[in-house]
């Protein structure tokens, strides 16, 4: 837990770390949107006052160290299996608040079956889906979400849909199911979108507290390191190109 420094006279504290976050340093690359998204989840946990009954599930990928960053209980899942692990925890102890935090390779490729079926059962869990279009941790390989023409280490000439498949719009797929309560796509490339993403995350947790069922917040994220861009360029890339393939907004909301 962090030690609060005394505030000198005449100063007003306007910004501090959420209580849900520990003092551990992020292992994310500089400029990556994971840092913002992780913080938004922590803020939501603070605002809802659920830290002491929340269990997070970390994926395999850039967020594999997530348990270090949070002050709540955590379970580290095998690649893609977070929604199945979350199902086990939530069914065993429905009083807990259970969330997964997964990347696009984890959730939409190797874990597609676990994701679809947890959604279809309407599992009363919250899923934070960070979509940056590449496998970040392993070196920037093609993900199911990679844009057509996008160069990755496994599509050095760019993704050719007829060879490598099309961008997988898993949130649109999930929105067709009867099970989920809330499926939304957000971004965090500017302040306005960060505020909206935060509201979506809050809603996804509130849905669970109200027993509404499966809620998933997809957040378009950057990977400056593997995109070979500066953080500013990467943010602009999301705003100008990625949102055209993955339009922002609610895809399903039962209210």
């Amino acid at each position, binding site marked *: 837990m962090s030690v609060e420094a005394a505030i000198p006279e005449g100063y007003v504290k306007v910004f501090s770390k959420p209580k849900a976050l520990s003092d551990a340093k992020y292992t994310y690359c500089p400029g990556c949107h994971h840092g913002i998204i992780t913080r938004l989840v922590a803020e939501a946990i603070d605002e809802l006052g659920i*830290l*002491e*009954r*929340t*269990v997070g*599930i970390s994926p395999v990928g850039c967020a*594999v160290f997530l*348990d270090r960053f*949070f*002050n*709540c*209980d*955590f*379970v*580290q*899942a*095998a690649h893609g*299996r977070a929604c*199945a*692990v*979350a*199902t*086990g*925890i*939530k*069914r*065993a*102890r429905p*009083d*807990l608040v259970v969330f997964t935090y997964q990347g696009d390779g984890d959730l939409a490729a190797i874990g597609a*079956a*676990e994701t*679809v*079926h947890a959604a279809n059962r309407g599992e009363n869990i919250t899923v934070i889906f960070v979509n940056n279009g590449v496998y970040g941790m392993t070196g920037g390989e093609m993900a199911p979400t990679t844009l057509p023409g996008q160069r990755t280490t496994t599509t050095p000439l760019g993704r050719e849909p007829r060879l490598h498949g099309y961008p997988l719009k898993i949130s649109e797929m999930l929105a067709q199911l009867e099970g989920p309560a809330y499926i939304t796509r957000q971004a965090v490339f500017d302040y306005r979108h960060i505020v909206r993403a935060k509201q979506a995350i809050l809603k996804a947790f509130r849905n669970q507290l109200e027993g509404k069922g499966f809620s998933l917040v997809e957040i378009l994220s950057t990977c400056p390191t593997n995109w070979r861009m500066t953080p500013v360029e990467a943010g602009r890339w999301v705003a100008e190109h990625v949102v055209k393939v993955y339009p922002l907004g609610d895809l399903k909301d039962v209210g």
Partner: protein
Amino acid sequence: MSRVLMRGNEAIAEAAIRSGLKCYFCYPITPQGELVEYMARELPKRGGVFLQAESEVAAINMVYGAAAAGVRAMTSSSSPGISLKQEGISYIAMARLPCVIVNMMRGGPGLGNIAPAQGDYFQATKGGGHGDYHLIVLAPSTVPEAAELVRLAFELSDRYRVPAMILADGMIGQMMEPVELPEPVEPEDIPERPWAVTGAKGRPKNVITSFDLEPEGLKEMSLALQETYREIERNEVRWEEVETEDAELLIVAYGTMGRIAKTVVRLARQEGIKVGLLRPITLWPFPYEPVRELAERVRTVLTVELSAGQMWEDVRLAVEGRAETPFYGELGGVVPSPKRILEEVRKYVG
């Protein structure tokens, strides 16, 4: 104790429920269908969670989650399904979560068939998935023993925080026998789980993980796991001996074959052939010492399995040249008669 006539699969399910099972996750596969169906009927009525998963992979990861949340959890399957679960079992082993996995083995490799077979011995006793780990493996040879070993599996798994496996086959699963079911456990009889993820209220956070990127840290986790295995090897080896006192030939056989071998011992003795049987009940930890001690006194240690010779390797490791160690096995789901095995015995006596 209540004595009832039950099918093996159902006796295992009932014994698990009476052992405080809270969450059961499954995927349908023969020859353990009755276990799944019994759970679907009975577990929710008795306060538990039954969930049919989308795959074996999901089912074992649901077990991982429920076990992490601190409840008694179980899954069951048969050979090809158990292969799919190996990833999850490896994670569960390193994350130190107690749970019970039932494997009603069938013929293999590949899709094989649903007849009795023992071809998963290596997979069950030598780890199965990736990494240095073991399961506690219990091999019943009768329906009542299956019920008894389910209770033991939950107890040992809790005591050592190591997953336990019941390894049997369709013969045990489908057969009906009178069973004395164990008394239901009281909630207070189930050990506390201070490490479980139950919400970090009034305590530091709990983290369930199989992961440490630092070699020194991972080495420490691995050494702790290995120390537990040594402790299990010291304390939990179980086996049965039949007419071994004056035996000149020792049969080593487990599960279904162990049961058939008992008849072989009786038939051989009627002919004046001094045959004894050692039936391992724990396949891991394997009864190396008891086999070794008997190998000092007999001329032949004959391993009989429904495989091409898997436990045979452990028997030879135990005997280490003290006796001759022939093997007789059947494959493909063919179950040999006692008379056929007796023919094999005659090759090495007289």
